[in-house]
């Protein structure tokens, strides 16, 4: 059995009087590749933000390797949804990646060390864009900027990589490459990813978390067809089958037998 790295118990989150997430329980084991799916406004991004510590739960708790988020327990790499914000900011791809290593406690020495530079270049190399290291971010394409932001998340060698709809600005060919890359990365680290991309999710993810105020976690699928059914039910029918019959691949278990909650 793999170690638990994220442990969420009885979590509720409400925002200005409205309940966004209700009674969430989720255990993420090391080495998992979880796709978080569900309708817009269902609380997917909120769940991510609770895990990385940007939001505090109204009730219940989140533990990362046994510690509260924000405390140095688990090294998390975070890739945001927005990649076009602050586009004219004067920074090179390498600068942005090195920002990933920033530790507020070490304010001095000023500037960046040779070690930071090497690590930054190594992360860019991993993403296959080291030749753009010195280029200004405004001169990069959307796909390249996306890779820069993933390199920024990888530069600290995290145990958990959290991505929020990472493929929104990549074309189909880029997406295939991107998911293959994630699969490669998944050999070394755990991945938690919000996505709307049903086909890719069912081809690459190991398990699915359906989030629509509540959460249902589905693990260990017999086939990618079955996984696709689960994802499809969550995203399209706005509902989630609590259990999956161990049906043969190709035999759809939906939408009949769907329990709505």
């Amino acid at each position, binding site marked *: 059995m793999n170690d638990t790295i994220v442990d969420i118990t009885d979590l509720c989150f409400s925002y200005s009087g409205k309940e966004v997430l209700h009674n969430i329980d989720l255990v993420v084991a090391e080495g998992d590749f979880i796709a978080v799916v569900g309708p817009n406004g269902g609380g997917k991004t909120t769940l991510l933000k609770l895990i*990385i*510590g*940007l939001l505090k739960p109204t009730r219940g708790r989140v533990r990362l390797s046994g510690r509260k988020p*924000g405390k140095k327990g688990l090294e*998390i790499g*975070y890739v*945001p949804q927005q990649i076009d*914000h*602050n586009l*004219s*900011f*004067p*920074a*090179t791809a390498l*600068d*942005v990646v090195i*920002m*990933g290593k*920033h*530790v*507020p406690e070490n*304010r*001095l020495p*000023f500037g960046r060390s040779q070690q930071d530079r090497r690590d930054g270049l190594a992360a860019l190399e991993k993403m296959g864009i080291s030749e753009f290291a*010195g280029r*200004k971010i405004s001169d990069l394409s959307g796909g390249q900027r996306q890779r820069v932001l993933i390199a*920024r998340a990888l530069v600290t060698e995290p145990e958990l990589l959290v991505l929020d709809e990472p493929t929104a600005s990549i074309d189909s060919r880029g997406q295939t490459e991107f998911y293959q890359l994630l699969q490669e990365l998944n050999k070394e680290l755990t991945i938690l990813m919000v996505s709307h991309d049903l086909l890719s999710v069912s081809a690459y993810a190991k398990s699915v978390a359906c989030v629509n105020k509540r959460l249902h976690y589905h693990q260990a699928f017999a086939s990618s067809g079955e996984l696709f059914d689960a994802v499809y039910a969550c995203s399209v029918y706005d509902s989630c089958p609590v259990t999956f019959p161990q049906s043969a691949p190709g035999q759809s278990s939906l939408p009949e037998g769907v329990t709505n909650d």
Partner: protein
Amino acid sequence: MIEALHFEFMRNALLAGLLASVICGVIGSLIVVNRLVFLSGGIAHSAYGGIGLAFFLGMPFMAGAFFFSFLSAMIMAAVSSRSKQRADTIIGVMWAVGMAVGILLIDLTPGYNVDLMSYLFGSILSVPRSDLLIMTIAGGGILLLVFYFFNDLLVMSYDEEFALVRGVPVKRLYYMLIGIVAITVVMMVQVVGLILVIALLTIPPYIAEKYTKSLIQMMVFSCALGMVCTSGGLWISYRFDLTSGAAIIFLAGTGFFLSLVLDRLIVLSKRRLMLKSHREMSG
């Protein structure tokens, strides 16, 4: 220009201009990359209310302006960090009300009335030595603070959310940055005037941002541009007997439009090169 420097007021004016360029180059870069230009304009104009208050109560000018704009800066910071969508409206209201309060308070002050106009464009040609000293000390303090927190400010300015994930105290830094803007503005108002402060805080950093590859380069380049504008503007005002503040802004504005033309030319020449290579390939 050289013979003009025989006058002490000219030397002081030039020194004040250079000092203002350095402070505005550094702080202005942070304002531009954090998109705080409108907020800074709000702080600068609500300082007017403080000037009025200072005259009404018979306080020293600096104390009144500082109190008023620091207070309004903190309110603006609170509003803009809470509700980003409507922050511009609140800032616009405070901008207008601050100025109106200033003028009403001056009206209510018995005795001779100062010309608030002089605070718009400042009086760089009559900067006393004592003001230069205050500018140097306060400016030095501000720059030290910025450079101590430089890496935090850099990460926050590029991506606030990511900075939070890395544990940067974003909220406190944001208040600190806006507080610094308030101090900068008040310090500069008497010397170079409200309008010139906004011009120096925005025009050189905007030009610099396009041609530099890092925040620190942007700051250095903005300082240099600011220095060229202030000393050039002073020379123009001396040579042609024009208002110094307006001459400095006019020079900066000319630079701004030239940089836009330059950008256009760069795009056009890239296009021509591309078309040329295209023709050669096809024929």
